């Protein structure tokens, strides 16, 4: 069994305040997700995280494959897409996915952290720009919303 999460301490010796942990949500519905990341490790890690929450998760390693998969009719409740992708980058892939009329929640999950990148990804069509790593404080509210656990505004 993993050591208790509350044993972790920050660099200054104090306790880390953690508003969310991974086991704080139980999904009522079967949600589906697509992870688009060119890095093998990040792709499998994000898939592992989403599957742990109970999402049925597919992965592709480039933007072109993501566009083709969605063009073939595959539907997802959530798409995590990186900016830097081989063959077709995340910005263009996002634009093309949105141009197909896909309105699902899209998160741009990237190691880029600049304001210019954030604006570009949002302009391309992602709903949220997230600097890696994607943590529960970002993901849990989104999953609750997708699962209908919050009233829509």
């Amino acid at each position: 069994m993993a050591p208790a999460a509350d044993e972790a301490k920050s660099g200054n010796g104090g306790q880390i305040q953690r508003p969310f942990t991974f086991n704080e949500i139980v999904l009522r519905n079967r949600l589906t997700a697509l992870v688009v990341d060119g890095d093998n490790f990040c792709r499998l890690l994000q898939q592992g995280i989403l599957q742990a929450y109970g999402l049925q998760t597919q992965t592709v390693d480039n933007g072109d494959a993501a566009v083709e998969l969605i063009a073939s009719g595959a539907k997802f409740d959530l798409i995590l897409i990186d900016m830097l992708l081989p063959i077709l980058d995340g910005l263009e892939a996002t634009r093309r996915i949105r141009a197909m009329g896909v309105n699902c929640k899209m998160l741009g999950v990237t190691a880029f952290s600049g304001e210019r990148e954030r604006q570009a990804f949002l302009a391309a069509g992602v709903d949220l720009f997230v600097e890696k790593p994607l943590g529960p404080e970002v993901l849990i509210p989104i999953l609750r919303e997708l699962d209908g656990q919050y009233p829509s505004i």
Partner: protein
Amino acid sequence: MDRNRLQHQVACMRRSLFDQGYLDEPFIQLEELQDDANPNFVQEIVTLFYSDSARLIQNIEHALNSRPIDFNKLDDYMHQFKGSSSSIGAKKVTNECTVFREHCSAENAEGCIRSFQQVKQEYAILRRKLEVYLQMVGQAAVSQTA
């Protein structure tokens, strides 16, 4: 070794990994994903991180040895390395990746070479510490079920 003493050693080692800044919040998230259904999740993810990192380090070394240096390619590789190291909570490695990318943006070859040595050093230190820590975690788990 006595079970309680082993578990105490594991807890102390874990605290020091966080206190000394080698690991950060995302590693806790990995640990929380480990359960009876995924009993080796942390080890599997860490092992994948090692192989992914070895590939990226090799690519970066090759790019640094090429003449002329392709700084765009270098930046892409280090961008990937920063992404994966931050995803696992490898705080010091991630910080050194950021320094490297600053030298890359400035097309400072000497700076890139110097900071890459730091990246490799921090990665090697983290890997050694994680191997010891996870080995002890495994031993503690076995002693619990014995």
